[in-house]
């Protein structure tokens, strides 16, 4: 074998997969169509946001790269949802696209044991049995062998781009599609579907009128995405907000027949949560205006991204409707918006390790699995890379549960429910989101990263220290009672006199920042850890309730199901359940219960079956 692992694709999933394999000391080859496009942001120039920001920090806790890349390339930082509750706050950063991409490539280049190579993979090499992968074949006829292959083709597999009447075989505007691999996978018996996504026009900043739009600056304080960084110093830029109006909508409606989406040219299903402006206007005719975020693409470019208005209408129509928007009256389009339709592989064909059920050693990650978003892609890439490495080491795969990580929710949803539209994470997909705060990602996952081998001893020791200190803070708050002199300083404490500080902290009106001034011991503590203790105490009641639910969830999760169980032999299952269970091959009773079409009565039958065969 030439390598121990091959990664196909250099996007956000491919980067993480290749780094994980190499960092765990396996020789790895990353093949991409264009080395200058590694870590490219095909869509909006931002990382993070609701649930996604949590994922970035989870990736970091496990030993991935994304958080470090964005910390070094961000040009604006904000915490979203500050007023709406700790569990749904999330960091989001605007990125310097070119810098991010450059840093990603440079990181890969400097990784020992990792080779980069520019070519297009058109087929897989299989062993004689046909059930195991052993390498890849490229467009130029090169053959590379390896016992593990991670497939991360993004939107490039058999992709077509649409702008009005124009179509081209491309994965991104100006970049050719990867033709051949999709057909090869179809031939191997993979279920391949079509999805659609879109992107808005990019314009020249100097052609816009920022004074006619609302400025949206970032926050002064940057909380690093990476737990390894204590401080991030970066230049800041602003975004601008403007709105469409009735005139905009009329132009869109008048030209809707020229939209490839409404004209019937596109068959693939698009994301409902991120609709094109055509969709917004057609589906919500009563809404008089839609927001547009003007986001800079970088520090060394004048190109700006018009977030919120993705479109595949003809270029002249795009220009016409955009120029009705305040601030965009004289806009110059540099790249038009477009829709892209691409092949994806039904993720029901994967185990929770992201390894294919059909072909051993083949791991699939990222947009190829029907997801959307850089963060979702990176998370899968990391887990696929880790699991390929663990497999080489002969160890059990790393499978995160829904109760411990958004990444667990993401992968469990994919391999249990499959997807028919581009899948995006939402906090509402997580049953236990109160426990999945972004600031606790290290507490939840860093030790797992250490066990895998991607986190250093120092990082682990740092975590243990943090855990200890949070405990100390809580002990301090438990012991220290509210005294008369405290009330003089903080009047809200009056009704809590004589009670412990932790009891007082449960009162929504009492804040940790008030208490810090009362006690020297507290004042000496790390501010972030004080904040975490505050949240833990304030929401203990809710968290406890959720933990009880988690316990119940774990009971079902801990009941293992053999992957090779032949469900048609289990007497009593409904026909639909047999079909679905044989397709998904769940690894736990909990996962089986989440499959659509598997009813409670089927789970009852399975429990009886397992009890009998124990």
């Amino acid at each position, binding site marked *: 074998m030439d390598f121990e692992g091959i990664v196909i694709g250099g996007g956000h999933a491919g980067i993480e997969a290749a780094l994980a394999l190499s960092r765990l000391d396996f020789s790895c080859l990353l093949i991409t169509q264009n080395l200058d496009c590694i870590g490219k942001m095909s869509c909006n120039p931002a990382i993070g946001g*609701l649930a996604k920001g949590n994922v970035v920090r989870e990736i970091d806790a496990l030993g991935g790269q994304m958080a470090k890349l964005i910390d070094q390339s961000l040009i604006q930082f904000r915490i979203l949802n500050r007023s709406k509750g700790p569990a749904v706050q999330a960091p989001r950063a605007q990125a310097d696209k070119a810098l991010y991409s450059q840093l990603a490539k440079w990181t890969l280049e400097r990784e020992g044991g990792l080779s980069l190579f520019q070519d297009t993979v058109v087929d897989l090499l299989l062993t004689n049995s046909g059930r195991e992968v052993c390498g890849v074949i490229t467009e130029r006829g090169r053959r590379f062998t390896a016992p593990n292959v991670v497939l991360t083709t993004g939107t490039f597999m058999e992709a077509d781009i649409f702008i009005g009447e124009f179509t081209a075989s491309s994965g991104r505007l100006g970049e050719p599609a990867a033709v051949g691999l999709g057909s090869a996978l179809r031939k191997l018996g993979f279920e391949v579907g079509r999805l659609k996504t879109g992107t808005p026009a990019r314009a020249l900043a100097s052609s816009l009128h920022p004074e006619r739009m609302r400025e949206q600056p970032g926050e002064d304080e940057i909380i690093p995405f990476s737990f390894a960084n204590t401080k991030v110093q970066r230049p800041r830029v602003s975004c601008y907000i403007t709105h469409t109006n009735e005139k905009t909508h009329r132009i869109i409606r008048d030209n809707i027949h020229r939209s490839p989406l409404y004209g019937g040219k596109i068959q693939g299903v698009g994301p409902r949560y991120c609709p094109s402006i055509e969709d917004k206007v057609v589906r919500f005719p009563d809404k008089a205006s839609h927001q547009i975020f003007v986001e800079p693409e970088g520090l060394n470019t004048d190109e700006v991204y018009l977030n919120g208005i993705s479109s595949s209408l003809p270029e002249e129509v795009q220009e016409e409707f955009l120029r009705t928007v305040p601030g965009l009256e004289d806009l110059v389009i540099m790249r038009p918006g477009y829709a892209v339709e691409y092949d994806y592989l039904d993720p029901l064909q994967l185990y929770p390790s992201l390894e294919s059920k059909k072909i051993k050693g083949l791991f699939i990650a990222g947009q190829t699995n029907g997801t959307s978003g850089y963060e979702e892609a990176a998370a899968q890439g990391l887990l696929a890379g880790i699991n390929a490495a663990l497999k080489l080491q002969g160890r059990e795969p790393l499978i995160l549960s829904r109760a411990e990580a958004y990444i667990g929710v993401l992968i469990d949803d994919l391999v249990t429910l499959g997807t028919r539209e581009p899948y995006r994470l939402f906090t509402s997909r997580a049953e236990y989101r109160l426990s999945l705060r972004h600031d606790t990602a290290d507490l939840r996952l860093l030790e797992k990263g250490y066990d895998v081998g991607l986190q250093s001893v120092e990082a682990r020791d740092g975590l243990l220290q943090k855990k200890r200190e949070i405990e100390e803070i809580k002990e301090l708050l438990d012991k220290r009672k509210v005294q008369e002199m405290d009330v003089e300083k903080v009047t809200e404490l009056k009704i809590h006199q004589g009670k412990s500080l932790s009891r007082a902290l449960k009162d929504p009106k009492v804040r940790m920042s008030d208490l810090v001034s009362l006690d020297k011991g507290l004042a000496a503590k790390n501010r972030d850890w004080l904040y975490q203790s505050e949240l833990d105490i304030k929401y203990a009641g809710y968290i406890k*309730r959720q933990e009880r639910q988690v316990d119940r969830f774990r009971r079902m999760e801990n009941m293992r199901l053999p992957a090779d169980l032949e469900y048609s032999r289990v007497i009593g299952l409904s026909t639909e359940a047999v079909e679905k269970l044989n397709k998904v091959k769940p690894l736990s009773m909990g996962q089986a219960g989440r499959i659509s079409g598997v009813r409670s009565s089927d789970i009852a039958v399975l429990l*009886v079956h397992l009890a009998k065969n124990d």
Partner: protein
Amino acid sequence: MLKPEGLSSILYLMQKKSLYPQDYNPEESIAALATPWGESALAIIRLSGLDSLKLLSGIFSRDGEIVEAAGNTLHYGRITAPDTEELIDEVMIAVYRAPKSYTGEESAEIFCHGNPAVIKRLIGVLADSGFRYALPGEFTLRAFMNGKLDLTRAEAVNELIRARTDRARALALNRLSGAIEGKIREIRDGLAGMLAGIEVWLDYPEEELEGENDLIHEAEGWALEIEKLLSTYSIGKIVQEGLVAAIAGRTNAGKSTLFNRLLKEERAIVSEFHGTTRDYLEGYISIEGIPFKLIDTAGLRDTGDPLEAEGVRRADMIIRNSDLLLYLVDGSLGLAAEDRELISTYHDNRKLIPVWSKSDISTAGTPEGFIALSAVDGTGIAALSKEMVNRTAGNLSSSTEERVIDSLRQKELLERAFSSLEDVKKSLQDEVYLDLIAVDLKESLDALGEITGEVTSVDILNRMFKDFCVGK
């Protein structure tokens, strides 16, 4: 070896109650009356669950004794209401220690006096201390889950399930009348809409969402709807206490004779209730498996005697609150003006069954619609019983417009939904963070979902994208 009754219980649970082994949670302590409902020398209430002994000790006079007690021991003491200190009954408690109990869990049996009022009060106190009323067969289910029942006949279980499972949920749902199911769905959809509104607001922090909903107002509205449904439970507790059949008529119409005759014919328990003005009798009978509570009311007549007038007023109240009214007209005297008046009052109501009593000495023929009855020789008793059952079927059928909650499980789930929604209201008023409010709202929704089918996060997402235009 799985005993036949164990087998049927599990099947019953799976099919009728949609309760499955995976619902088993040993942390939930359950209680149920193990002896038939009604008057008897002794009644037994069974308890089981991880904390059952601890919970029980909270209301038992010798509290320490039970928690420490060895298995298979008996303890004498008093049970009092925890809040009012009111004495409920003197009882014997049998303690069983896990795993040496029927269910394999920590368990107990309370031997109390077999008086329905006492039993009812005792179960109420147990519920207040953290017990949940068990579903039929739930003790057997727990035994099954704890390996106390052999599974050699598991295939037979499976075989039977296969024949029925796809219809099981539908059957369980059909226990709800169409009207009530529609109402619960309406409330559930309303809450799902609220939750979708909150979730979209949380997941799309940068959207300008139109018309921020008045969540407090909405929560209040839905809580009120649930409360209304809950209030119907008192007249719907048929399963637990039986349908109330009042026997009424003018003085000397033969009410007491009929009362005694019915009790003699059918399996019955009689108890006397001593009112302040006039006594009335209550008895429990079961006809074709349907439980009835028979009440012999005071004679209806206008009277100047204030004491007797009070008796008449009470009889009137019982009639109004009864499910069936057996109205007796003395056949030897014929229809009086008061009879006509009363019959016409209840004429349209399905609950009225006019009875022509003393038909053996009646000179006139039996009027149309009346059941001729002679309590002396038993003529007409069979016809009356049959009619009572027929009317009951009508009462229980889904054709009834009235929305009535008639199962304890539904009631408890509605109560859970209600109390979570009250928490939502309070949190909204206190301006608690929305992500926390969502937890309570989800709990309320889950409780309703247990009655009408689950609401998943995918359903909520669908609502979000259907109702709101979001996304960059």
